């Protein structure tokens, strides 16, 4: 019970801090929209082409835009030794991690919910046909991004070349989850229901989320404290 209270407190703190400046949120949103627009402009995909690449395009946009939010997750605690204070506080490392992950998750979902209608408009796609299954996949996929992005934000916060290390470590690890999200999103955006042939991808994505959440919770103390 205390764990969840701590988690929510940390999440609220991060969200409140972010809402004051909206730095990461704006950067992420702008980046997502720019990529979507530029891609549409550069390739002018036909309806058929768009249907084929929808999943890949959307998740690449979300992954890159998400990196801007996730990177800041632990970096925001560096000034004024806030990170040391948090680690030394009675808040457990797991709650600290989960709280930050939750905050980043909500921010990233917000960006995605703005990006999706923009995608619909500029690519002429009626993506709302399978709205709730799509939302479910969005949540699972975004959680995959968040879980890994946050734990590696913790790992790389004190490293040299952090800007390089975080993407280099995170993206290969994300690939199975991203691939599953892409394979699930493409048919859903095209309006096809989640048929049994897609269940394997769903299982992969869900399993990915569960395994990495568990691993992250188990190892975050080692990363932050030693």
């Amino acid at each position, binding site marked *: 019970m205390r764990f969840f209270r701590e988690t929510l407190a940390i999440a609220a703190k991060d969200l409140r801090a972010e809402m004051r400046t909206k730095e990461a949120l704006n950067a992420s949103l702008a980046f997502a929209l720019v990529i979507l627009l530029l891609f549409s402009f550069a390739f002018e995909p036909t309806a058929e082409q768009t249907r084929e690449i929808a999943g890949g395009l959307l998740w690449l946009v979300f992954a890159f835009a998400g990196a801007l939010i996730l990177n800041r997750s632990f970096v925001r605690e560096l000034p004024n030794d806030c990170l040391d204070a948090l680690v030394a506080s009675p808040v457990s490392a797991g709650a600290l991690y989960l709280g930050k992950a939750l905050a980043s998750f909500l921010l990233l979902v917000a960006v995605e919910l703005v990006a999706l209608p923009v995608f619909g408009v500029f690519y002429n796609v009626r993506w709302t046909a399978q709205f709730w299954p799509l939302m479910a996949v969005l949540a699972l996929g975004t959680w995959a991004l968040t879980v890994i992005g946050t*734990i590696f934000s913790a*790992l*790389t916060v004190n*490293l*040299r*070349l952090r800007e390089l*290390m975080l993407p*280099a*470590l995170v993206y*290969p*690890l994300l*690939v*199975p989850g991203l*691939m599953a999200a892409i394979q699930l999103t493409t048919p859903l955006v095209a309006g096809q229901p989640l048929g049994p042939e897609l269940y*394997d991808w769903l299982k992969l994505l869900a399993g990915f989320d569960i*395994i*990495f959440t568990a*691993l992250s919770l188990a*190892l975050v103390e*080692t*990363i932050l404290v*030693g």
Partner: protein
Amino acid sequence: MREKILIALAALAGLLLARNLYVMLLELPDEAAQGAIYRIIFFHVPAAWTAFAGFFVALVSSVLYLIRHNLRYDALAVSATEVGLAFGAVNLVTGMIWGRIIWGIWWTWDARLTSMLICWLLYAGYLMLRRAVDDPTQRARFAAVFSIFAFVDVPIVWFSIKWWRTQHPGPVVWGGGSMDPAMYQMLFFNWIPLLLLACALVMLRLRQEETAREIEALRRHAHAL
């Protein structure tokens, strides 16, 4: 003593290899559709197995480091990972050559090839991570954590061949594929010299880690003087 073991391992590996090459080239029948090139499989597949064995050793070693905090485990983890990467590269390159000949393409983004390449890049990231941390204890800690995360990908690569019907040939070792029993046996038999070679290389690399630590100690001594 260790020198002797190293030389013995290498010699044994060499002998087995020579014997296998003889059998491979002169005794085994040719494959109907592919001709002589199919023999690459006897290096392509065992190289992957060796790489995974290396990554598994790195995983166990990493976990042991986090429990026991003995830097020797860290040394073993990095050595096993490096050797695993070398054999992983062998798997990828022989696969590409084989694919170019048989399918006409150097590469395709099917599940098996993608996940193997990603796995390789992941462990290359492990080496990169180590370079970004100066303090040996912190380096060992972060590397160990990353090694545990990275190993989650290995079962995915392993099972991708079974889960997804892709460009890459279906599973032969388990899952009901058909293969001439003599070839099947050779597949496993050629794994042995590769494993022996891998052990020798890991031992060499381990010794280098010890030397590096000796240098660190001496450097600190020199500073103190």
